[in-house]
């Protein structure tokens, strides 16, 4: 969208105004996330920039809030719980979701649209509604306040993402490759691991990452179905934010931003790999 040399002044002015507006919107998107990073290194108990910080005086900065995080048992427990729950939930979501996506993308799948709508619904139903229902139900079957109960409910919330990403990857998948494999004498499991899996792996991994982050970020359902024993990082944050926002929360937030960046980079690499692989396939 470069500007040709011959355009009229009015159009030229609009072009730069438009760029400027876009700049402002992008600033609105990214600035709030970036602003917490310097603030988390605040030396005082402020949630705004102190004079020392603005003049870049080293005395204005410290890592005390990170130490505070590291020395607080409730945060450390939160980290353990978060990873434990999210990893198991993501494994369940990814396994069930990938297998289902394989079925859904076959052309002869019956009631495809209806089933798809049902499987994606956990992503659409408001979390508070899911949380209420899951609480009542898990109490009934005796799984409330257990890790199992939390993991399966998070797995439910993660499956739509896996189904969507894997079916998207499979849409460019040449189904005749499966027949070719079977024709040449491979067993169905060999076909799955040697032909299907390598091709859809980028989609599966990005689905798994979505499922992981869904569970890792989730506060509403776990607030209903869990107890303080299973408290995760977002829950500690949520309870902290409700009372009083402290710089420790900003330190944790900064760490979480770091995790998001790592995930984003992984996703981007996967996307590129997937595009390369698809470029090679005959479709």
């Amino acid at each position, binding site marked *: 969208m470069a500007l040709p040399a011959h355009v009229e002044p009015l159009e030229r002015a609009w072009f730069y105004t438009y760029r400027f507006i876009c700049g402002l919107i992008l600033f609105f998107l990214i600035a709030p996330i970036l602003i917490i990073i310097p603030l988390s290194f605040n030396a005082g108990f402020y949630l705004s920039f102190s004079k020392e910080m603005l003049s870049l005086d080293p005395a204005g900065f410290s890592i005390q809030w990170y130490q505070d995080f590291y020395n607080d048992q409730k945060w450390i427990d939160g980290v353990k719980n978060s990873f434990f729950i999210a990893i198991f939930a993501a494994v369940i979501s990814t396994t069930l979701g990938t297998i289902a996506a394989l*079925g859904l993308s076959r052309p002869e799948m019956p009631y495809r649209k209806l089933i798809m709508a049902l499987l994606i619904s956990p992503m659409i139903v408001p979390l508070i509604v899911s949380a209420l229902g899951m609480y009542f139900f898990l109490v009934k079957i005796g799984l409330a306040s257990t890790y199992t109960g939390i993991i399966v409910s998070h797995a439910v919330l993660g499956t739509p993402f896996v189904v969507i990403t894997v079916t998207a990857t499979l849409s460019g998948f040449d189904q005749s490759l499966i027949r070719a494999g079977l024709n040449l004498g491979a067993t169905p499991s060999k076909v799955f691991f040697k032909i299907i899996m390598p091709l859809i792996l980028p989609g599966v991994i990005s689905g798994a990452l979505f499922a992981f982050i869904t569970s890792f970020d989730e506060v509403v359902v776990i607030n209903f179905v869990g107890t303080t024993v299973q408290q995760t990082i977002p829950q500690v944050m949520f309870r902290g*934010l409700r009372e009083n926002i402290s710089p420790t929360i900003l330190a944790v937030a900064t760490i979480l931003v770091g995790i998001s960046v790592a995930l984003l980079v992984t996703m981007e690499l996967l996307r590129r790999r997937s595009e390369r692989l698809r470029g090679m396939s005959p479709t």
Partner: protein
Amino acid sequence: MENTTAPATLVTADGTPLKASLQRALRQRRRQAFMLVLPLLVFIFVLFIMPIATMLTRSVDNPEVNSILPRTVIALQSWDETTGELPSEEVFKTIAAEFVAGSQPGKKVINKVGKRLNYELPGMSSLFRTSTRKIRRMKTGPYREKMINIKIVGKRWADVATWRLLKREGDPVTASYFLSAMDMRVDSKGEIKSKPVDNQIYKFLFVRTFLMSIGITFMTILLGYPIAYLLATLPMRHAALLMILVLLPFWTSLLVRTSAWMVLLGNEGVINDLLVWAGFLGDKSRLALINNRTGTFVAMTHILLPFMILPLYSVMKTIPPSYMRAARSMGATQLRAHIKVYFPLTLTGIGAGTLLVFILAIGYYITPELVGGQSGVFISNQIAGKFDSGNWGLASALGAILFVFVLLLYAVYDKIIGIDKMKLG
């Protein structure tokens, strides 16, 4: 010679008609495909559909009076509530016996009835608590006279409205939670009436949730459209860089983004500090940007913006740039070409983004809870509040209304865009 007559239909090697054989193969393939989906389907059915169904039943479930005062419920059936006369001594005697039975040490369930009826008629909880103590001391009748004469609260036993309520709520299924959720109630004459406007909480909250979600969705279109257009028209290399600015917020924890806005918008926050420092504001006249509607509006617009940009971008990517060039070369101005050619082609993207953002917005809980204060909370927050205070029936009824509403929007999404077209990132 056998097989002198040529077969009317083609057959396979084993003699079955080709058509039947093909059909069997197709059935088998359909079954195979379905078997792959089955595990997840069962998983979702058990752990998602059944929980939702449990919540829906909770919203009409009314076990308290029926299970704790069963004989009273039966005795009240023969009482005609339209005459305005109190039930007979027999009914009083029955309920007194059930008060005693329901207040045995260790099995004190009678107060549950009081708590339940208190949702419908304030004062019932204390009536039940006080009456329990007095009735346990009554050895003989007449119960009607003695119960009416209980100090302070006893006159409520002489009120026909109390008995009407008992009779009505003796039904194991009730509509009263849904009536409350719609700010209606059954008055003392048994008619369904709207509550006085001043007491209407939920209708007001639903309307606010709805209107603010529309506002937020509109804002995301306004901010998202230019960015999606920029991303779709820039050369790939630059676009990929700018895309990171959109995707990073998308991948960042909801709580991180909400706390960022708390830091920015707070009274002592970055924005206010900046405005004071720059001299636009006096130190005393800091802006109230948080714990009100503004807070919810700004933070949610920011959080939901990527959900608008991404679908818009994926539609804009598919529009060939030659369309615009053709329009320009035929004499349209940039603006006219955009409105007449480009914009109509992006409508599916706008539709997808709008519905997605709106569906997500009306169910929001965390962000309004933290930055919304009193005036910026949504219906979800009220549902959580009712749950915490123990009124699970009302929480479920409010949840059910929200659920049905979202389901309708989901159906619209499916109709217009198609659920299988949903994409992420």
